[in-house]
């Protein structure tokens, strides 16, 4: 193998040379002794590792502006790690049953598990991983009793001591978080933490009392929560140690230390570390509290929807009254034309004002929506953006936050997972006031909460306009409300979701009263009932503090 091969895998010719070496080794493997095969495989893997270690920092730092060359490189890295996994897995399977050789029982399976995880990290596809070979490597280690023996390996140019079960759960955790909710730099930070958390990545054969992740060894699935069905072969990863490790990362940051203090992840922006902390915290909390990770999904195929990106576009197109907004049901020929991205097809020509974006609703759940888009429609939409849409004319405007962005089901398509913020947004005019003076008026997006007391209501405002001390006046019906947007609940790219306090309630100029107006008697729900109906009716409208 050429000594310069590992220097620059950004060059296509170097990659081609590596591929030739890999193909040659693959063809020679059956004729080599197992020791020799393991040694040659280790050399090939080390060459790739050195090449990746050289470019990774820069590659990840520029991930927002990758061009086709970068995409090709990333796809190549994923494919090469898959090949290395495949060869290591084959070698591990071919070893004799009563083998005690450390290389074959530990190093080769460790390499297989490591490369499976790396392939997940660099994956550019949306298809589900094939988990069975991964589970097979772990099952073999369990049979041999080698899952907890320490093994020394080199990854990212650094020597590390790990165990097979730690590598196994590292791979599965990376797979869990690689669904598009973390960007590639963020996934790299998570991976760096997982290397630090190796002592906490130890499995149990019996389901623990506390919450845990589960890997079903006989299945073709990734990590699940809770106990397996009786008789199923499963490994459990308790969550509490991982939650503790996350707290350690926070404690280190309080002390002004990054985790880890060296390496590629330590050079990434601190905001990325915080984003990973929050995402991991949400995932662990959801699993620890026993909530379902995902609401039940229903297919939404066939619905082509115009979406609006960002607050301004949602206000101007989504919340302004229009007759032609919303979704349209289209036929198979249009589906095919758009999937094929064929602009000459007459059906496709229906589409469209180039300033508008159309996405395909692929699945729906209570908490979110899945959309697919052509690459051209997906340009500029990233995790953290706001999307607005109406499912049909006359339906309220829904708004969601892009939580996942990943390759679509076919090439040149992108899949978006959108977390629903509200199914019925509304534009409300707010006037900024200072004392009695009106400074400026602007439309804002009102996001109604699920609580009748209004304590979960919020406004979506642009980040640049958000100031906690500003007082706004809203006029609804004949009333004026003074609002202070002082509860920052969520933020994304250029927007913040703010809860608010209603500062004072004033009644606007009353209508001219007629003489001897008889005030109507308002009957409260449940009034006069003996079964506590009145108390129940009021219970949702008073402060939770009074319900203690």
């Amino acid at each position: 193998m050429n000594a310069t091969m590992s220097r620059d895998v950004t060059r296509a010719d170097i990659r081609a040379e590596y591929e030739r070496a890999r193909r040659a080794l693959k063809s020679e493997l059956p004729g080599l002794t197992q020791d020799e095969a393991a040694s040659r495989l280790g050399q090939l893997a080390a060459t790739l590792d050195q090449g990746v270690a050289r470019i990774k920092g820069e590659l990840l730092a520029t991930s927002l502006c990758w061009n086709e060359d970068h995409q090709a490189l990333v796809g190549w890295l994923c494919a090469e790690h898959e090949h290395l996994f495949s060869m290591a897995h084959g070698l591990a399977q071919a070893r004799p049953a009563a083998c005690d050789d450390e290389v074959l029982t530990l190093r080769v399976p460790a390499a297989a598990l490591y490369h499976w995880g790396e392939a997940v990290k660099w994956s550019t596809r949306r298809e589900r991983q094939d988990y069975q070979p991964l589970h097979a490597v772990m099952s073999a280690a369990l049979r041999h009793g080698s899952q907890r023996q320490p093994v020394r390996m080199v990854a990212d140019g650094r020597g590390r001591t790990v165990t097979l079960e730690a590598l196994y759960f590292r791979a599965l955790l990376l797979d869990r978080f690689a669904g598009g909710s973390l960007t590639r730099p963020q996934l790299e930070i998570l991976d760096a933490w997982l290397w630090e958390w190796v002592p906490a990545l130890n499995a149990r054969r019996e389901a623990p009392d506390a919450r845990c992740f589960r890997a079903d060894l006989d299945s073709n699935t990734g990590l699940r929560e809770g106990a397996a069905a009786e008789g199923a072969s499963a490994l459990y990863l308790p969550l509490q140690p991982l939650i503790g490790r996350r707290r350690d990362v926070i404690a280190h940051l309080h002390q002004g230390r990054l985790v880890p203090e060296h390496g590629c992840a330590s050079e990434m922006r601190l905001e990325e570390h915080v984003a990973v902390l929050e995402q991991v915290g949400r995932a662990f909390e959801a699993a620890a509290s026993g909530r379902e990770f995902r609401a039940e999904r229903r297919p939404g195929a066939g619905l082509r929807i115009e979406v609006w990106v960002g607050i301004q576009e949602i206000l101007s197109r989504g919340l302004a009254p229009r007759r032609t907004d919303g979704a349209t049901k289209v036929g198979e020929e249009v589906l095919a034309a758009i999937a094929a991205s064929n602009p000459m097809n007459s059906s496709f020509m229906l589409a469209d004002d180039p300033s508008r974006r159309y996405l395909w609703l692929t699945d729906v759940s209570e908490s979110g929506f899945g959309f697919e888009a052509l690459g051209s429609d997906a340009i500029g939409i990233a995790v953290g953006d706001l999307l607005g849409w109406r499912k049909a004319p006359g339906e309220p405007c829904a708004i969601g936050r892009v939580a996942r962005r990943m390759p679509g089901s076919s090439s040149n398509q992108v899949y978006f997972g959108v977390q629903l913020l509200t199914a019925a947004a509304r534009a409300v005019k707010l006037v900024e006031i200072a004392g009695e003076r009106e400074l400026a008026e602007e439309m804002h997006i009102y996001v109604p909460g699920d609580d009748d007391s209004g304590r979960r209501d919020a406004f979506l405002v642009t980040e640049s306009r958000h100031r906690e001390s500003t007082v706004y006046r809203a006029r609804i019906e004949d009333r004026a409300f003074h609002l202070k947007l002082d509860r920052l609940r969520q933020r994304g790219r250029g927007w913040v979701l703010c809860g608010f306090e209603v500062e004072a309630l004033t009644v606007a100029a009353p209508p001219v009263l007629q003489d001897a107006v008889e005030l109507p008697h308002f009957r409260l729900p449940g009034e006069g009932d003996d079964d506590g109906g009145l108390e129940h009716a009021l219970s949702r409208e008073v402060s939770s503090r009074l319900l203690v």
Partner: protein
Amino acid sequence: MSVLRPPASSWFPMPGLTFGFWRRSRTSAAAKAGAGDDAPKVDFDRILAGIRAAPQLEMIEWKGDGMQEPAAEPARASEDDGFDASKLDGRRRKIRDRYIAARFPGIAKCGADLADEEPLIRAARLMFEDDRAADALELLALAVEEYPQRVAAWLAQLEILYLTRDAAGFTEAAGAFRQRHGAQSEAWPEICRLGRALAPAGALFAGDVKVRDHEHYGPWPHTPNWIRAPWDLTAEVSAADFHHALRRAANDDVERDAKEAA
């Protein structure tokens, strides 16, 4: 090259001694310079072989499934004991400040912003009311680390721990408070009262029980209101009015659209 005489010559008038010293140093410098002319002779193969060679590692003793999580928490606690945010070096100070800004946007841009008690405690209270008690506690913990001598953040932290019924957390924080401010602190009897309610068996809170005649009095019953919750509930009633007014307006719009469509 400098033409100044080496200072040693003025201190050592014996020519042989001084010249010899500088000659040696010149010789070694020349030797180094000469070595730099050749191509580097680094034995990469030997280094790589060292990496690839299987190290002689001792077996880690695993205690099986019953094994407890390694003692990370106590280790961290011992590190925390010596932690003083005011003595951080420049780099660590910058990381801490950037973390505060990224973690609590709109509330603080750096540790110094946590000095102002009023907005700090208000922000923590609002987070707690929005079901983000963990975030509120972290914000207050950062403030306590930054200004440990000020009691307001300590007390707000204790009250939120009490309201979330976190007995272990409350006991730990109360112990740290007592260590820092002593049992003579004005707030200590009140902390003990809350502690006895939350962890009756806690030895830290043992002592005379002083019954108050206004237990139910306050924004949150039984609490001292260290989180400074407003006593006036008008804003909350107004929020409900606002919610219902907008819901009525939305219903009116739907009806109007339906009529227009018909």
